[in-house]
């Protein structure tokens, strides 16, 4: 059909009522701007909060929990239907926190191409000596470089560098809260005592600040070799293997697989942090609800303006029909007015949304809990822009649909007679 003519007529009609048209378009622009900045901001926060947990949480963790063995010795001798064994007060005994044959397991894991990387850990309970009192704490033996690469360990270290754990012998990074309790600063020495009575003096090289104060009051990090030395264990002794996958969604399945193959406990990130998904989901729903509400309001604006335009343009519609434009042509004219308002308003909305997001992105946002973040986080995913424009077009189409149907059914005879 004669599309260019239809557009030409719509444009002239809009120009004749440019103030109202502008107001309608501003309505759409405003709602799309809000939609984009809100979604960008909300999802920026989501990403940040998820990142807070997800980035530094292994997708799968292999470890040995303290628990009684599933198969008690008595089960081995009473393995038939007639006898049923009751055991009271089962206790865990002589449990070995280390992962058996860890070197071989790690070799296999390193070759698995679903896995992005692994980090072994060896944790120990220790007492930090400060003057006359002992403070209980936890020392995590880690490989600083791998931890930084896979779990952003370095991002949470301040007043020094994470990698110093590997370069400075007998060094330690203390949780910020713990360091405050011990009254030490980088360069000072701290003394650790293990449950087994072993003692060691380590040099503080940096502080660690996770954003969770209770955690920072007890945790400290040193190299895995230092912990092995502290516990008097050989250098393949490892208590945890942390695994990062390329595709996080495989974690539950692979955790089961590793549990059966290696006989260790295997915990996947989904079961460990189920609540985070829910939080993001709710925040998303809120942003979409607000954005769509704004759009519906803008849609009513367009609806009103089109109705008014059609009321004013009754004569023009009648004459178009009398001179050979069909009802369908008239409908197309008013629909394209609505869609032009939607498209122009929507595109401008995307632009202002982007500008607004950039402004939010520049606002300082400094918090103790999040040392790596200095401004408000914003997500610029193209998805929100596409969704925003689609919504704008759908709403304006719906807002234009009924008025233009009304216009198309105007009977020219009634109008022409009416004079």
């Amino acid at each position, binding site marked *: 059909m004669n599309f260019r003519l239809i557009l030409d007529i719509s444009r002239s009609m809009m120009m004749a009522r440019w103030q109202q048209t502008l107001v309608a378009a501003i309505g759409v622009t405003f709602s799309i701007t809000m939609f984009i900045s809100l979604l960008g901001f909300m999802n920026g926060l989501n990403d940040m909060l998820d990142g807070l947990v997800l980035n530094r949480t292994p997708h799968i963790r292999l470890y040995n929990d303290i628990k009684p063995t599933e198969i008690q010795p008595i089960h081995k001798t009473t393995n038939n239907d007639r006898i049923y064994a009751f055991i009271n007060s089962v206790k865990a005994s002589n449990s070995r926190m280390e992962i058996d044959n860890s070197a071989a397991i790690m070799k296999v894991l390193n070759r698995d191409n679903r896995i992005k990387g692994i980090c072994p850990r060896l944790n120990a309970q220790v007492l930090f000596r400060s003057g006359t009192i002992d403070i209980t704490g936890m020392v995590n033996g880690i490989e600083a470089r791998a931890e930084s690469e896979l779990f952003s360990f370095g991002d949470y270290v301040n007043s020094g560098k994470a990698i110093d754990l590997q370069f400075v012998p007998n060094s330690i990074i203390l949780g910020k809260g713990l360091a405050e309790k011990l009254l030490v600063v980088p360069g000072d020495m701290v003394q650790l005592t293990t449950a087994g009575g072993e003692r060691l003096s380590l040099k503080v090289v940096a502080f660690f600040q996770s954003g969770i104060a209770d955690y920072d009051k007890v945790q400290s990090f040193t190299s895995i070799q230092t912990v092995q030395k502290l516990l008097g264990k050989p250098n393949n002794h490892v208590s945890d293997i942390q695994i990062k996958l390329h595709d996080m969604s495989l974690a539950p399945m692979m955790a089961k697989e590793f549990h059966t193959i290696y006989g260790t406990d295997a915990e996947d990130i989904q079961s460990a942090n189920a609540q985070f998904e829910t939080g993001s989901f709710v925040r998303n729903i809120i942003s979409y609800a607000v954005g769509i509400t704004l759009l519906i309001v803008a849609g009513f604006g367009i609806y009103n303006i089109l109705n008014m335009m059609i009321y004013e343009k009754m004569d023009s519609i009648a*004459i178009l*029909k*009398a*001179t*050979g434009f069909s009802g369908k042509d008239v409908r197309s004219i008013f629909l394209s007015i609505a869609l032009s308002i939607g498209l122009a308003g929507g595109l401008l909305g995307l632009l202002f949304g982007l500008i607004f997001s950039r402004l939010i992105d520049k606002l300082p946002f400094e918090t103790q809990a999040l040392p790596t973040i200095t401004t408000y986080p914003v997500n610029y995913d193209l998805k929100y822009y596409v969704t925003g424009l689609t919504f704008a077009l759908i709403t304006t189409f719906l807002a234009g649909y009924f008025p233009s149907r009304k216009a198309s059914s105007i009977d020219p*005879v009634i109008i022409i007679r009416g*004079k």
Partner: protein
Amino acid sequence: MGEIVLQASHIHKYFEDPVKVKVLHDINFSINKGEFVSITGKSGCGKSTLLYILSTMDTEFEGDLSINGVSTHLKSEEELATIRNEKIGFVFQFHYLLNEFTVLKNVMLPALKLGKLSPVKIEQNAMLHLENLGIRDKAFKKANQLSGGEKQRVAIARALINDPLIIMGDEPTGNLDNKNSQIVYDIFNSLCEKYNQTLLIVTHDKSFASHTHRIITMNDGIIISDSPK
């Protein structure tokens, strides 16, 4: 006589307002190519109602209407719009121009809709019609900046743009002074004479009607006389 351009057979029309009133009763006549016909009668006798039916805009009637030998019965709204676009040129009492457009664009619109010629050619034709009607200098004015007589000439140019089978007018001089009425009549007359243009004009202006070639007189919804000159 020549070929039949328009044929009305047994046309009846009722209005329900609120009781059923018959406004047209058994209208039968046909118009040949090149005829200059007027329909007269006193106000309220059904002239306009008949013209809206003949122009295909009003489809709620009994009987049949053929244009160029083709019955309009059972045609869709879109097909009827195409017939109006291609075959019928309108001139109303109130000029009904589109105020958002220039005079030139108003004249061009039906041809742009028809889409048979290129926009450039259509513009040339439109300018030619405006020239013939003596309003070439008004081509780029907005439609609402013209006087009544000028507007009516623009409406005539618009009616002519698709070279229609028939031009219909509902009191085209009803709103004009004597001088402008005379101009409009002269235009119609020369169209008929020079280009063999068929015209059907509703008017209650006795003197206008008396100068046409054939006068159909109506009273209370029926044709009481049909007299070629």
